[in-house]
């Protein structure tokens, strides 16, 4: 095809269905910083996200806090994003590059779908995110690491699937639950202990809320639900019907129920221990 100013590709270097390649050829790729950014500035960090599988798909959730050093820099940041109709990505790590990566990832999936006329498989989407992380490795070396979770409903296998990543782009499929970020140890442990096969949507949603609550209880960089400002974790379910973000009203009810249970069932130390009858099941 003839080259025109708005079609920056020559036939020899067709970017195909890759939006990232198109950006590269258009010279719009962000430059890699020289030197360790985190040594010079306090980089804003997003913290804890968790995802669990349930009977109809997956539930994915993230707290609302972003920290820079020992300051809370945002109370209402969102770390869970729909990637397309049947998948979502949750991010932990340097907030700037992470949000940019999500934006690029969403566009990549949409771009592929439009150019090719068909969606990528869930495996293909997970792999795309892996490649984007690998490309981000030079940034991670400069203190701008991003560690996401990818969760989606596999239309071919008819079940929810979860993927965990590391900064090098390593992709690890998890069967039941996964967590990322500074509070991931605590959130993951709660999810691990209370996970049951074939949970209902309600059970799974309560489990992720409790996981984040316990993570916030033990990790200073993870935010508790903020009843004063009406800020609750971002929670979304992904099933055959697609991505569905929970309304604030439902979250408030569930958070209040959880707090009531902690303050009545467990007595004085209710906030520190999960008694047998207090679990989400």
């Amino acid at each position, binding site marked *: *095809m*003839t080259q*025109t100013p*708005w*079609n920056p*590709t020559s036939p020899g270097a067709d*970017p195909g269905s890759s*939006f990232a390649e*198109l*950006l590269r050829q*258009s010279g*719009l790729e962000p430059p890699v910083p020289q030197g360790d950014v985190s040594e010079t500035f306090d980089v804003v960090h997003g913290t804890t996200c968790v995802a669990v599988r349930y009977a109809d798909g997956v539930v994915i959730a993230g707290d609302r806090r972003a920290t820079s050093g020992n300051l809370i820099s945002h109370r209402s940041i969102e770390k869970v994003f729909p990637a397309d109709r049947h998948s979502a990505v949750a991010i932990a790590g340097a907030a700037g590059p992470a949000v940019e990566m999500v*934006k*690029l990832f969403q*566009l990549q999936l*949409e*771009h592929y779908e*439009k*150019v090719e*006329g068909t969606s990528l498989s869930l495996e293909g989407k997970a792999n795309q995110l892996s490649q984007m992380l690998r490309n981000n490795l030079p940034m991670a070396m400069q203190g701008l690491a991003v560690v996401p979770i990818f969760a989606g409903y596999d239309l071919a296998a008819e079940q929810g699937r979860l993927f965990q990543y590391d900064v090098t782009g390593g992709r690890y499929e998890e069967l039941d639950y996964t967590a990322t970020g500074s509070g991931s140890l605590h959130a993951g442990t709660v999810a691990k202990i209370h996970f049951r096969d074939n949970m209902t949507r309600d059970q799974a949603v309560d489990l992720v809320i409790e996981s984040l609550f316990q993570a916030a209880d033990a990790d200073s960089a993870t935010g508790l639900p903020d009843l004063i400002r009406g800020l609750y974790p971002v929670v979304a379910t992904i099933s055959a019907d697609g991505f569905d973000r929970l309304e604030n009203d439902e979250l408030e009810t569930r958070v209040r129920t959880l707090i009531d249970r902690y303050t009545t069932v467990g007595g004085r130390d209710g906030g520190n221990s999960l008694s047998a009858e207090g679990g989400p099941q």
Partner: protein
Amino acid sequence: MSQPFYVAPEQVMKDRADYARKGIARGRSLIGSTYDGGIVICAENTSNTLRKVSEIYDRIGFAGVGKYNEFDQLRIAGVRHADLKGFNYSRADVDARSLANQYANMLGQVFTHEMKPMEVEILVAEIGLTEPERDQLFHILYDGSVTDHTTYVVLGGDADALRERMADWAPNKSLSDTLKLLVAALAGDDRTLVADDLEVAVLERGEERRTFKRIEGDDLTALL
């Protein structure tokens, strides 16, 4: 040194235009039209996989008639242009008018400078997110000439005959009524077209960010 024969520029352009028109006339026509909920594009296309109508961006659809590989290249160039623009600025800044201008430049450039003109006619359609009066249909010809419409537009070799059959067209009809009219116009007097012979897509005003939807199979049969 050999001297090429002199050919008047008028003759060159006329030959090229005739060539492009002949190529376009070989394919089947399509019609884009507004209806009460947005824009519907209806093409005669027996293939379920090789598309004539497709999505460019949130509120923008694309349709082409003529040579498949040529309008498909234009489609992909349009998707790239729109996605890059949306990434650089904002999704709201991607509009059909600028896209239509780019297509016009591209087709005009090819028409005057290349060995052979592109044997295509394309439609770039955009709906207003809330205001129906901002629905727009841009019709771009093989030589880069553009016309814009707010009612309906017919693409393809048989356009004049089809336009005559569109006499009953009226604005703000339901999707089903509009579609029946378009299909009757495409079919003519001595044929009937069923869902399998058609490719139909709408840009539908509503809650969703991406407004482009294909209507296929039973859904389409129900509307007809």
